[in-house]
């Protein structure tokens, strides 16, 4: 087999995703193939029937997008990177491959139905909260995928990467060394992950909300020199700020129309509760050497099989019969003190009729900070300003703190009446 052969895989978003023989071997490993059995958007197909795509195709797309971003940054800011991070041509080649591997494997640790079940990750022993899917990804790279990452001729003859090098960049560890600079491309404000998922989720859901000018954005992304002892940071050249604005808006629309859709959120709640019934101890095995193998046995197929056998309890039954919770009240996206008081009255009036609540801030897809740095070099005069200083739209796009309140479908009328009485006169 020729280790230098390049392969291409069809992609509905990017056309073709190119990969080398080393990456192809990694993709062929069972720990990566498992992603073919994990849907990207959980039960979103109950609202948007086309949204049946998987983490597998998304991971390929992230590798492709991260490479485009990397190449563009090097094109636009080679001098900055050479000066501040000391790269020579070999350094640029090495980091490019590291970014590709980290991007490809960043989601290897997803649990069944992706983010919908992440709340069932166990607590860490050090008291720092629950494990995150990046820690599972890193553990899989250091464990089952170690051989596939380390033992290919392309690696041994050219890069000498260890599984630790890739895992450290994925999880955000000091072991990533100077490669940590590129972590913003894997998980950050303008990362390859969200650029890919917005376009891919839009495509499969059949909506236009997540679309933006990917190629303009990519061509203007750059590394901005650090000042006052700070490291260089990723940002956007002045000519690309409208494309960055469109990315921010795409996230807003996708959040409100798809990710935080009231019915989709209800299915997330039922899935989580059903999984508590299915998982031993009510949570996933930990990403530790003793439990990781067991974790990898969990995928959508296994969960669906167990649900089909009637093992998911009341919530499993609600999933299969579509008798999901119904939204009975929603706050405004931007909450004022008055909104908070109104919600308190609704909660009091509904009492035990409240089956569940879901705040937007608790959603994995919540819209985080929009502070993208815009860099301008005009005749040697260099300025850096936040995107919000250029864009009126971004400046006024407040954070979505909406809360959705749910009741049982069989008690929807009763609950709706109580809500109406509670807020009467306050509208």
């Amino acid at each position: 087999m020729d280790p230098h052969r390049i392969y291409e895989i069809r992609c509905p978003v990017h056309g073709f995703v190119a990969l080398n023989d080393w990456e192809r071997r990694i993709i062929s490993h069972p720990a990566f193939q498992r992603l073919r059995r994990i849907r990207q958007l959980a039960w979103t197909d109950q609202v948007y029937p086309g949204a049946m795509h998987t983490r597998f195709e998304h991971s390929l797309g992230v590798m492709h997008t991260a490479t485009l971003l990397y190449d563009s940054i090097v094109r636009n800011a080679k001098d900055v990177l050479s000066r501040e991070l000391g790269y020579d041509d070999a350094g640029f080649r090495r980091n490019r491959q590291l970014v590709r591997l980290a991007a490809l494997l960043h989601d290897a640790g997803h649990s069944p139905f992706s983010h919908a079940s992440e709340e069932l990750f166990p607590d860490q022993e050090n008291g720092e909260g629950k494990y995150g899917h990046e820690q599972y990804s890193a553990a899989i790279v250091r464990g089952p995928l170690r051989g596939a990452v380390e033992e290919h001729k392309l690696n041994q003859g050219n890069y000498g990467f260890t599984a630790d090098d890739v895992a450290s960049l994925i999880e955000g560890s000091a072991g990533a060394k100077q490669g940590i600079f590129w972590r913003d491309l894997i998980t950050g404000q303008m990362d390859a992950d969200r650029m890919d998922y917005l376009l891919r989720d839009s495509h499969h859901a059949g909506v236009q909300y997540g679309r933006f000018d990917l190629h303009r954005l990519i061509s203007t992304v750059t590394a901005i020199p650090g000042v006052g002892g700070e490291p260089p940071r990723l940002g956007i050249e002045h000519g690309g700020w409208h494309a960055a604005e469109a990315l921010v808006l795409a996230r807003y629309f996708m959040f409100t129309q798809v990710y935080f859709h009231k019915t989709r959120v209800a299915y997330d709640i039922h899935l989580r509760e059903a999984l508590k019934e299915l998982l031993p101890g009510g949570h996933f095995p930990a990403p530790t050497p003793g439990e990781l193998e067991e974790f990898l046995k969990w995928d959508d197929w296994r969960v669906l099989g167990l649900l089909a056998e009637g093992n998911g309890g009341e919530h499993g039954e609600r999933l299969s019969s579509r008798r999901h919770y119904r939204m009975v009240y929603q706050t405004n996206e931007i909450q004022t003190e008055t909104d908070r008081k109104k919600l308190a009255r609704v909660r009091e009036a509904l009492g035990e009729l409240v089956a569940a609540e879901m705040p937007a801030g608790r959603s994995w897809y919540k819209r985080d900070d929009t502070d993208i740095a815009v860099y301008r070099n005009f005749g040697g005069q260099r300025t850096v300003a936040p995107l919000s200083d250029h864009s009126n739209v971004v400046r006024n796009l407040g954070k979505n703190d909406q809360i959705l309140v749910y009741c049982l479908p069989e008690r929807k009328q009763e609950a709706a009446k109580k809500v109406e009485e509670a807020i009467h006169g306050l509208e």
Partner: protein
Amino acid sequence: MDWSELQDARLAVITELASRAPGGHIGRTALMKFCYLLQIVRGVSLGYRFTLYSYGPFDSSVLSDLSTAETLNAVQSNLTYYPGGYGYQIRQGEHANSALEAGQDFLNRHRGSIDWVLREFGSHGSADLELESTIIYADREAARRSETLSIELLAQRVRDVKPHFVEEYIRGKASQLADKGLLKACRNSVSAR
């Protein structure tokens, strides 16, 4: 703590830090690193998940909560420019008291820790806070693996992440943190060598 209580606690801490910071305002970097230090060094259960970037430990949820605090006018942010960059001055807002009252029990429990972070780190600049929090992050990673590090080895690991700092400066900062008892894998500059 349920989600709503956690949110109240986080907003109260952000508001308290902005209200009591030296000079009456705090920057975003300082806010991020103070939350990190409170959670990791002092064990204040803010529920953030910090991971490492070239600019130190970071969790975008802190900025998300800051945005909520701004919307509620518990704090207000003003953009400021300096040569080659920009920053924010975050001050107490008109409705700060509502946020402080909502998280009062949490604040009362952790007032000593907030006093500590403002006393020990309140006057430090952004670059130093990024460096100091990175040193603590690298130290905690080593401690989780039951490693014992010398100041030199810890400084070398941090320099790999932050190559724009000279190693001697990093060693000095690490020694100061060790002398204050804030490092776990690297207890002080002598015994671990």
